[in-house]
């Protein structure tokens, strides 16, 4: 019996031990929980409202948008940075700026374009002989899977220089810039197909394809529009130009584009203006483009069957221009790949509804939005029921039979976004309002909300997916006038956050955009973005483990003739080596790896006077190449306040003058 007792006691003791193990581990975690401070309510809310002159609506808006420290926003906005050429990342509902992603324009904090590997990406975007280092960014588009944002990539276009860039949302860094070889400007881009097979980039101002010279008098004959279907290789996270192709378009000024989805997958739509093909000539006494292009009552919506176009391209029915396969109009028209349909007066905006059944075009100079029925148009094309042809032989669909309806919106309707309840929200530029209306019953707007001022684009939460979230709409206003403290004659733009969850639209917050004029933006649920916190050691700007990655203890300087290679590491709070001595005229390459692994431990590296500056996030590798063409003794140092001994994180780059 005693033996039995001992066994029982032992087993019990083991059980208790196990319980202690578990208990203790929890306690350690709990220890970290800090009690939140109680600040006390010395001033009552009512007093605060009175002293700050706030209405109840103000307080409600404040409560809906305030994100206290330690809490996070619900959505990300990826906004085009306009003339800044970079992407603005903004949190919603707080409307706080989270990041500026260097894309087309050097961005010195990220060391974007100052001697490191990012230079190679920027160089990939050079057009012809020119090193282009700015952009007029217009339309960011998030990658999609089955018509839903998947949070993996962002595509943006540069209207001024006809380029498209790919931003990887794992590290919020640009990975590729592809120059459009055919057009000289673009606008309808970068719009993705529902599974991101293609990124569509459409030209804006026509020019001879391949950017050749042609006298303006030969505009109709030689100038063309073009839509590029950039093939996206999701595995590589890059656009594959060799698998991309283009569709020749008439020299109307193609504007915005959108890809079909669900029922209309395989189709794309581009609106246009200036079907008059006005080219100005004010010195010769001709009307400027602004009036020359506004004569016709109707312009043309381009209806494109891109699946069929793709098949024709694969069948080799193309002509190669500037290295790109182009499906020309004389093939595309008769094949039913490119069809036109009238759209009222100089339209703007071209937005496919979430169900993929309709495409909505804003009238701009017409007070209506026109709602096209995609199924009807497909049937008309199938039956070849046309209303004639344009000057380029492209079939034109009968307008009345192509539309589902028109809605009288107001003065200057532009872009339309959607919520989850069948409502459309159209930006109305001249009236400075957001018009809310139903895209199901085509009645007049149920509500208009004044915005401040001159709204251009508009966005809603996941608004151009197959399942918009509703909740928030942002009016992207071109003017801010009396909304912010004066900062001289160049005013900030104004993003106005609007609550669309309730019966009535309500203002929530204004956000000044201080760095440029943003165009389109997209809003994505925050939990879809899976941002990395540090790089795998040795990762370069292209996202690859760099072959020249440097490990701790393997730092060295290697000379080969006049080529000097420095293998360097950075870790709190020193660079190894911290002295580099070269001869004037040497070709210097500094391979530098951050050995940091901890979150938010970033170093920077600069060599004074050499226009070299890279950012070394944890695990990042950079290759910096330059010619030591300026003799002297130059400090090199860490540009990020990384630690208490940050100022001591420095060394010398010595360039010995050539013997004369």
């Amino acid at each position, binding site marked *: 019996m005693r033996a039995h007792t001992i066994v029982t006691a032992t087993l019990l003791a083991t059980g208790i*031990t196990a319980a202690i193990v578990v208990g203790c*581990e929890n306690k*350690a975690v709990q220890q970290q929980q800090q009690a939140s401070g109680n600040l006390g309510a010395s001033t009552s809310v009512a007093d605060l409202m009175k002293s700050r002159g706030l209405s109840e609506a103000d307080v409600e808006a404040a409560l809906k948008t305030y994100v206290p420290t330690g809490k996070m926003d619900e959505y990300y906005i990826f906004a085009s940075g306009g003339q800044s050429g970079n992407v603005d990342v903004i949190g919603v509902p707080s409307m706080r700026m989270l990041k500026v992603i260097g894309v087309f324009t050097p961005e010195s904090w990220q060391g974007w374009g100052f001697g490191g590997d990012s230079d190679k990406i920027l160089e990939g975007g050079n057009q012809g002989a020119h090193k282009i280092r700015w952009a007029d960014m217009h339309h960011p588009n998030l990658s999609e899977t089955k018509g839903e944002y998947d949070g993996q990539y962002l595509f943006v276009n540069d209207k001024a220089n006809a380029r498209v860039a790919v931003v990887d949302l794992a590290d919020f860094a640009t990975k590729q810039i592809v120059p459009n070889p055919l057009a000289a400007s673009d606008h309808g881009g970068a719009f993705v197909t529902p599974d991101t097979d293609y990124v569509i980039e459409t030209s804006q101002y026509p020019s001879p394809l391949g950017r050749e010279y042609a006298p303006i008098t030969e505009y109709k004959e030689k100038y063309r529009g073009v839509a590029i279907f950039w093939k996206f290789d999701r595995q590589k996270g890059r656009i594959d130009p060799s698998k991309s192709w283009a569709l020749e378009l008439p020299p109307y000024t193609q504007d915005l584009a959108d890809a079909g989805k669900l029922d209309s997958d395989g189709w794309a739509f581009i609106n246009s203006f200036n079907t008059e093909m006005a080219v100005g000539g004010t010195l010769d006494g001709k009307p400027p483009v602004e009036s020359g292009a506004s004569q016709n009552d109707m312009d043309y919506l381009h209806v494109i069957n891109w699946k069929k176009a793709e098949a024709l391209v694969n069948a080799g029915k193309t002509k190669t221009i500037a290295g790109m396969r182009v499906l020309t109009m004389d093939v595309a028209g008769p094949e039913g790949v490119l069809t036109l349909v009238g759209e009222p007066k100089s339209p703007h905006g071209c937005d496919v509804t979430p169900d993929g059944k309709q495409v909505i075009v804003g009238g701009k100079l017409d007070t209506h939005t026109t709602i096209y029925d995609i199924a009807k148009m497909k049937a008309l094309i199938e039956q070849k029921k046309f209303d004639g042809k344009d000057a380029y032989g492209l079939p034109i669909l009968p307008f009345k039979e192509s539309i589902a309806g028109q809605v009288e919106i107001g003065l200057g309707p532009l872009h339309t976004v959607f919520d989850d309840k069948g409502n459309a929200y159209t930006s109305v530029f001249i009236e400075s309002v957001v018009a809310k209306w139903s895209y199901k019953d085509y009645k007049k707007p149920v509500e208009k909300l004044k915005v401040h001022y001159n709204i251009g684009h508009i966005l809603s939460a996941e608004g151009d997916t197959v399942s918009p979230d509703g909740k928030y709409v942002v009016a992207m206003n071109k003017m801010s006038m009396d909304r912010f403290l004066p900062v001289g004659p160049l005013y900030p733009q104004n993003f106005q956050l609007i609550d669309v969850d309730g019966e009535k639209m309500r203002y929530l917050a204004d956000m000044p955009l201080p760095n440029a004029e943003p165009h389109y933006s997209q809003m994505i649920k925050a939990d879809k973005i899976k941002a990395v916190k540090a790089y795998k050691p040795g990762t370069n700007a292209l996202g690859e483990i760099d072959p020249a990655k440097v490990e701790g203890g393997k730092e060295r300087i290697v000379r080969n003739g006049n080529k000097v290679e420095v293998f360097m590491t950075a870790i709190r709070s020193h660079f190894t080596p911290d002295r580099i001595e070269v001869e004037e005229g040497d070709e210097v390459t500094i391979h530098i790896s951050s050995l940091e*692994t*901890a979150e938010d431990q970033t170093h920077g590296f600069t060599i004074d006077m050499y226009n070299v500056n890279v950012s070394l996030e944890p695990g990042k590798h950079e290759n910096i190449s330059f010619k030591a063409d300026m003799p002297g003794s130059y400090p090199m140092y860490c540009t990020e306040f990384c630690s208490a001994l940050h100022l001591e994180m420095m060394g010398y780059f010595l360039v010995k003058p050539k013997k004369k």
Partner: protein
Amino acid sequence: MESNRTSSGGLDEPGRVVHGGDGHVHLRVVDRSPPEGAARRPWDWARWLVVALGGMSVASFVGSFLLPWWRFWLYAPQYPKGLMLVISLTGMGGDVHEIDLLNHYIGMKHLADAAPNERMLAGYGVAAIGVLTLAGMALAGKKLNKWVAIPAVAFPVVFLSDSFYWLYSFGHDLDPKAPLRIGAFTPELFGNGQIGQFATFAQPAAGFWVALAGVALAVAANVVRSRVCTHCAHASECSLVCPRAMVLPDKARSAS
């Protein structure tokens, strides 16, 4: 009861006829243990309980070898999630890189320089404990018996003292050329401490507790074993090694 014991030493005498008080003739088994069969048989079986408990003890040590033994947490404002160092018998895990990085400011050695021999020998140590404990439980005679749990008991004690030694030595052997000079110190091995801006917290982890369970099991085995010995019929033959050690219980019984 005492009256039933035979006074003579030597082997049992099978077949000796004894007349019981009830008038029946019994075939008596004679040995030095309490004569009641009911009392004797469990202690025969308990030899195997000893081996089983010893085996469980060894299994615990082997298990602990695979588990973390100690954890240190470091908290500072800029490390809201904290840093953690995990110590096992053979190595270290967790935020070693980051802790080394911070330690270099105060001139502390790399964590990898701590207890290199101990970490190399730990596997042999556990193997030795296994062999010694199992062999001791199975083979030790009366004189050795009280020592058989010692290796198991000693192991965590050695671990703790060695850990303390290394903490002391790391905290006292700081590079005098370090950028930050803080006085010599010994990081806390248990509970809360403070090093610079870091609040520290240390406590044993699963491996240590499992090893303690191994100690408890070894001690329990040892206690049972000493009871077996006091009930053993062969105590007089017993010295360093148990003469019945490897005899199966049934045989031991029928041989008695």
